[in-house]
């Protein structure tokens, strides 16, 4: 089994189809159609990833996402029919790692899910230092003065990607490719929102970041000790 995926969607046909596609790729799907029971289902199934429809009866996807994120860093991919800026940003800010816009292709969805679950594969032990942070890549943990900083897997990936090459400036497009697994140009707002979330957790003063720096007009880079 590659991983357990909880599908929260009220459309039975789409849920079933998602199940077929997921199973065909070796994932183990679980289903929930009601937003208000989604958290319960999450507790019961302990999934490795959640596919979450934004429009749900009971509780909408944004609220469900917030509730899950409040207790777990499990990757959440939103399924949305909306592409309006406000809705997308709202979804991302509620804690979703990624979103796919309906109608999506099966391959596209699977690619995103795989990227998000890539961490389940073995990684070599590696310890990176960034400022006063020590990043244990294999152990998926970040420490400051021995204290563990709680990052979601996506935030961790983003940090590792930047911290491995502190001399390099990453454009949003490159980050989308490396961290989110996009093979086509996509929504760079994803990067902006998650960099903000990462900063709010690791920076002493998120307004004046010292670890993850913005390079105006280009993208982001990690603090380089040799500078």
């Amino acid at each position, binding site marked *: 089994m590659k991983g357990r995926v909880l599908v929260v969607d009220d459309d039975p046909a789409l849920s079933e189809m998602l199940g077929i596609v997921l199973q065909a790729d070796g994932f183990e799907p679980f289903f929930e159609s009601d937003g208000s029971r989604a958290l319960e289902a999450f507790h019961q199934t302990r999934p490795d990833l959640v596919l979450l429809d934004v429009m749900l009866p009971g509780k909408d996807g944004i609220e469900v996402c917030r509730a899950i994120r409040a207790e777990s860093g499990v990757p959440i991919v939103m399924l949305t029919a909306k592409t309006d800026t406000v809705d997308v940003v709202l979804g991302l800010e509620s804690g979703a790692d990624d979103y796919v816009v309906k*109608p999506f292709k*099966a391959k596209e969805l699977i690619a995103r899910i795989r990227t998000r679950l890539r961490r389940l594969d073995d990684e070599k032990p590696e310890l990176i230092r960034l400022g006063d942070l020590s990043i244990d890549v294999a152990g998926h943990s970040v420490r400051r003065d021995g204290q563990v900083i709680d990052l979601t897997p996506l935030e961790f990936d983003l940090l590792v990607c930047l911290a491995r090459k502190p001399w390099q400036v990453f454009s949003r497009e490159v980050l989308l490719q490396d961290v989110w697994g996009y093979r086509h140009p996509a929504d760079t707002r994803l990067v902006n929102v998650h960099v903000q979330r990462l900063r709010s957790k690791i920076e002493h003063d998120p307004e004046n970041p010292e670890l993850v720096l913005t390079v105006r*007009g280009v993208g982001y880079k990690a603090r380089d000790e040799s500078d």
Partner: protein
Amino acid sequence: MFRALTRRWRRSLAFRVVATTLVAATVLVGVSLGFLLIRVTNGLVDANTSRSIAEANVGLAAAQQVVLQASEGGPPPPSEGLADSIMNSLVTSDDRGAAYEVLLLEGSSAADTQLSERGTNLVEVSSVPLDMRTQVREQGREVWTYTTIQYVNQPSEPGLVVGSLLTIGTETAYEVYYLFPYGELQGTLDLVRSTAWIAGLLLIGLLGLLMSLIARHVVLPVRQAARTAELVRAGHLEQRLPVRGEDDLAALALAFNDMAGSLQTQIRQLESLSRLQQRFVSDVSHELRTPLTTIRMASDVIYESRETMPPSLLRSSELLHDQLDRFESLLADLLEISRFDAGAAQLETESTDLRVVVGAAVEAARPLARARGCEIVELFPDQPCVAACDPRRIERIVRNLLSNAIEHGEGHPIEVRAAVGASCAAVSVRDFGRGLDDDDLDRVFDRFWRADPSRVRNLGGTGLGLSIALEDTRLHGGRLAVWGRPGQGALFRLTLPRVAGQDLGETSPLPLDPTEVGV
């Protein structure tokens, strides 16, 4: 000053009313007061004149008496005594003192007589006009006229002179002149005149004030109506005029309010209808997405396993797959259009080098172009073409223009240009296909419009691409212009202001007509 006045004349109804009233009142008051003054003056002068003549006659009669007494023993010789007694009789007959002056002058026709002349209060002889003296001498009876009385040591003043001939014997005669200064009369007349002036000015002033009050009373509500109408026009449909009383202005206010009310109702109705319509389109598009996603994935699964299918099923799965793509882009375009129609489209501008964005769109279009056997030629300048724009939308515009050019370019090369000017940047896409005639040019941006309905659509475009491109351009405050001639291809030119929101005018760094010299 004059210009300011004419401006006010043109723009202020109240000013015009007051000014007109003032002019009319001035003319009326002037005419009537003038008439009054003339009548009063004439009456006073006439009364004064007849009284003066009567007084002179009394004096003359007394003098005549003196002369008669002196002539009892034959004509009296001219002597100082005679002159004095005549003079006395002329003056003392007056009972009020020196209200007049008297001149006793030698008036004989013969030159050799020697009569003494007399006068009162140093009156100059020149006070009596020469032609009057001639008249007195020749006619020998009483003559009067107006004159200026001149004194030796006093300022002269206007007055009446009454003259007569006093005959002494047969040979000699005195000319007697009574000079009545008008001093008192003049005072009265001055008083009347100044009173008339004051009364006139007061009348005009009051009239002006009154008219301006009335005009304000009428004009203020009119101005308020104009202001309210302006507010309603600006979209404040709930604005109304206050209605006071039952007069004409109240009727105007009522009618205005009715009109605004009915406008408001209609606009609200239209708005809600239009909102409903847009909501519907948007809802339909959204609702379609979920089943479409399922179909899409199902089709993907079927398409993936096409190797194992019999040929007929294989082709079916391919058609299903391709047409789903088309259906999907149609739905996406439809949703995009409905977003524009609802005014929900938002710009996310950033400073962007058009060469980069256009380059990306060109790269994305290359596989399609290659499949159609045509080449895309990039003709970009060396310097960056930076403009504040939403790069996603700009890329979409260029993508739409390119796929349009590929579809109609008939395999000829496609030229993509970019350029930058002082205030704007531009991109143009030129194809050398069938071209467009004048009718086509008018309709090319219409939704679902097809250049040639009989032609097979190979690219499966949605028919909304150019409409969306136009809307995207409008959102930027830019212009999307088209040139085309049958057989010579077509050119689409996108011009964007370099600073968002800047007025573009008619300029563009790229020419629209490629047949112009130098292109």
